């Protein structure tokens, strides 16, 4: 059942990238923040380009621009000068210094360099260390994927910023993970319906989906503020929607401040969303309102209406582990058979999660953890599928094997508007269901 990637050493067409992207993704959800990539220009340029293409939004990520001298003698000067220039250009409230394989390998101690800069800044360029928070985030590109980068950053930022007070703020922390603005908006909608006070940590919903306003605003005005992040230590509980991306932050708050943490599953489909609502209820003590029961009923109705189209269809899924695992359960709920289920980031938990679902529904999918597109294509050719659910990089394979594709997860750069769609909650699942069914119908 679970197929390892086998004895192959070489990776062919990778479908995950490295840590700095995940850290940047998270930092862009902090109000007035600019990620500063400590490494070569390419690390920054590629991250921006990928985010530009997915969100169709401007993305402000700076680099310390390593060249030969820095690579040999260390990047201290680049980092010090970089922070100063960044302050002059954008006056950010928050700078997340994101390390790279290069700066980690040459052994730059970004923590101590940042401490020095902060001391020096007091009094100079009209910036005191109180006004701007500069946080080191270790994201060596050779250790784990972009998912790991988000996860590391989710903890690093909290460690640096949280300030426990005496009283609880009565709120629920939500760490979204690498999901879309549309998903976050849907989660907020659910919490508003439940009358739950909440704090979305690293909220990209209004920093990476912004209006055309013509007025100049150097940095997005929205996002989670430093003050709100500091307050995260006083909440009633934390839900990390994605166990793999953000779980570290939630676990940190649990360990350090005794705030209960629930990690995943991503609320896609009936059971996962039910579970999310129950978790919220348990943590905050609010009842599930009839408005959400109504949404649930609508989703069930749509599932009933379309089961003749979805029944016994075979699906192949690829993408980030939490999105794929969450969607796999929904696929099963639709009477579809998961034929190939692959996470681009390796994870034993992912494999266990999918196996539990498969057992429950009595299916026998090929489960691949940390595979590349070559693995996916090979498995697909062996097991065949009627539909593929994948980010944009699976589209070419879908064309090759001539099956319809539903774009899902990150990144989607060959179609517009997917970052605004939700797949979470009853309403998000409904919109995903519509996509799946209509793609099947279009193709038949």
């Amino acid at each position, binding site marked *: 059942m679970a197929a390892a990637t086998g004895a192959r050493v*070489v*990776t062919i067409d990778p479908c995950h990238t490295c840590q700095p992207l995940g850290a940047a993704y998270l930092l862009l959800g902090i109000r007035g923040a600019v990620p500063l990539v400590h490494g070569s220009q390419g690390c920054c340029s590629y991250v921006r*380009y990928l985010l530009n293409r997915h969100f169709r939004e401007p993305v402000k990520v700076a680099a310390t621009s*390593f060249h*030969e001298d820095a690579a040999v003698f260390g990047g201290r000067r680049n980092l010090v000068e970089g922070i100063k220039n*960044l302050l002059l250009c954008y006056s950010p409230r928050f700078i997340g210094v994101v390390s790279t394989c290069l700066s980690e*390998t040459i052994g730059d101690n970004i923590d101590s360099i940042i401490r020095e800069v902060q001391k020096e800044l007091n009094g100079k360029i009209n910036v005191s260390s109180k006004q701007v928070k500069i946080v080191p985030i270790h994201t060596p590109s050779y250790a784990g994927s972009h998912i790991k980068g988000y996860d590391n950053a989710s903890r690093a930022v909290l460690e640096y910023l949280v300030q426990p007070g005496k009283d609880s703020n009565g709120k629920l922390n939500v760490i979204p993970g690498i999901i879309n603005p549309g998903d976050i908006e849907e989660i907020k909608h659910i919490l508003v319906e439940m009358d739950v006070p909440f704090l979305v940590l690293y909220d990209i919903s209004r920093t990476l989906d912004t209006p055309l306003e013509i007025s100049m605003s150097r940095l997005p005005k929205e996002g989670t503020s430093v003050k709100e992040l500091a307050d995260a230590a006083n909440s009633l509980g934390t839900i990390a929607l994605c166990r793999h991306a953000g779980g570290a932050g939630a676990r940190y708050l649990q360990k350090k401040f005794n705030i209960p943490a629930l990690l995943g599953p991503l609320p896609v489909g009936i059971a996962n969303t039910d579970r999310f609502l129950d978790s919220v209820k348990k943590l905050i003590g609010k009842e599930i309102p009839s408005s959400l029961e109504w949404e649930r009923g609508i989703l069930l109705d749509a599932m009933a209406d379309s089961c003749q189209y979805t029944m016994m269809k075979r699906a192949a899924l690829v993408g980030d582990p939490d999105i794929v695992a969450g969607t796999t359960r929904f696929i099963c709920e639709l009477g579809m058979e998961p034929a190939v289920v692959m996470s681009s980031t390796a994870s034993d938990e992912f494999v266990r999660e999918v196996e539990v679902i498969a057992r429950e529904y009595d299916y026998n999918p090929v489960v691949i953890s940390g595979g590349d597109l070559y693995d996916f294509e090979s498995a697909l050719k062996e097991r065949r599928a009627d539909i593929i659910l994948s980010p944009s990089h699976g589209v070419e394979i879908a064309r090759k094997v001539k099956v319809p594709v539903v774009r899902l997860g990150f990144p989607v750069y060959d179609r517009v508007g997917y970052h605004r769609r939700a797949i979470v909650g009853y309403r998000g699942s409904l919109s995903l269901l519509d996509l799946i069914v209509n793609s099947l119908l279009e193709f038949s």
Partner: protein
Amino acid sequence: MSASLELLPNRRGHVVLNKKDAAEKPECGRSTLPGVISQRACAFYGARWMLAAIPDVVHLVHGPVGCAYYGRTVRRTNYRIFSSNLAERDIVFGAGDKLYNSIREAVRQFSGTRAVIVYATCVVGITGEDLSAICNRASTDLGLPVVPVNCPGFCGTSQAAGHDIAVNVLLEHFIGKGDKKEPPLDNTVNILGEFDVQGDLGEIEALLGQLGINIICTFSGRASTTAMANSHRAKLNIVHCRRTGQALAEAMHDRFHIPFLKVSFFGLEETTAALRAVGEFFGSDKTEKVIAQDVKKARREIEPFLPGLAGRRVALFFGASRMGSMAKAFQELGMEVIMAGSQFGCRQDYREAGDKVKEGVLLMDDAHDRELEELLTKYRPDLLVGGTKEKYMAHKLGVPFLVFPQEMSPFAGFNGFVNLAREVSGIMGAPVWRLAQSRREVSKLKVAVASGNGLTIDQHFGRAEQFMIFELTPNSVSLLEIRRPAGKESVSYQDSGGRDGVRQRIDLLADCRAVLCTRAGECARKQAGNTGLTVLEKEGPLSEALKWCSSVL
């Protein structure tokens, strides 16, 4: 001379106002300042830009998986890529064996491969692995060329370093590896520095085809190992992009005695000049006929777009060498170039651009995000042309944007020029820009009145000597300023492009919603309407007219 942009101290020399004959051009080829959001990428990116499209070789990236993930996509196309996917233990204990095994496996997976290209990334450049030795060993064992490309991201100051490294790899291992004794082939060329973006190469090929000239190899939009091996047999090398083609042309000249021509296929004039130069080289007698018929056709096809483009202001921000030729192409469309900049242009690129644009035009090297933002807000061009990374910032500020290298259709050759005109016209003319403005102005109306005496409307639009600009709100009328169209003697509005009085007056009132005048010509009304300016004919006292105006608009 300085531009009215706020600049970091170290950036001042990089931004200059163009002066003909002056040696003063932007400083270039320097390292990017740390901490700014530069549009530049790294040497690895540059090497991929040059080599990715070579179809029949294994491309293997030796480094962490991210470099391969990103390097897979070049010019928006995905190419099969292999990666040694270095993990922490490989960095600590060395990854020589992993690389060797990766090469072997990749070759096994990719049957029919003619060579292996191994790209070194930052971390490999630091750990000091003996890449050449491993490649040599693999080459001996596999019986294939296994070529290291030493392009760690930190070398050089931009992707340009990667271009140069890749050129050397091509020269060393691929170009002219065919039969050295074979004679040159009649009527053949190579094209250097052409990447076949959205079918550009097809346009160029068709034009050369009409002159009876065939392309052996295009570096590197269409460069199979066979084509490269035979490329030494071409009679002429055509350099399309100086940055990626010039060094290669010079080296091929030294090694194979192939002469080269630097040309451009963007714009009617440049394409015409290119065809003449190439035609003359080969002694073709068809050149003038081809040019005459194609230029005539292109002129006919762009005609409907020209009125909407005339006098509109465009800012260009490119990779390097296209500034000059594209500036000329936009000027041929009747547009005014107000800025030409590039990520990593060289002195020659800026000199060429400076020769082709007017004095006073901004020349900017390695402009970063903050500077471009200021340019957009202070100069408010009607169009910014550049890469995807700049696109969405322009949109937020309500500035129309064209991606170049282009995303929709070829821009090269005569047909490409028509595509350019159509796309620019469509993008700038999209109603969204006007709608975005109108919402903000919904409660405030800016109206121009053609009045010489300041009491009544007394002037014809096309002959008006001055316009009084009023701001109308639901409960107030205030005079903002008086604007006068420049006379013929005035230097500031002198325009060799032949902007007439009507056009000039429309531009003068670009921010107004309407203009009140005694009369206006049919043509003036139409042109004004195209830019969102309503012409209202009315006579009588100003106060009454303005009241009437706010009720009808």
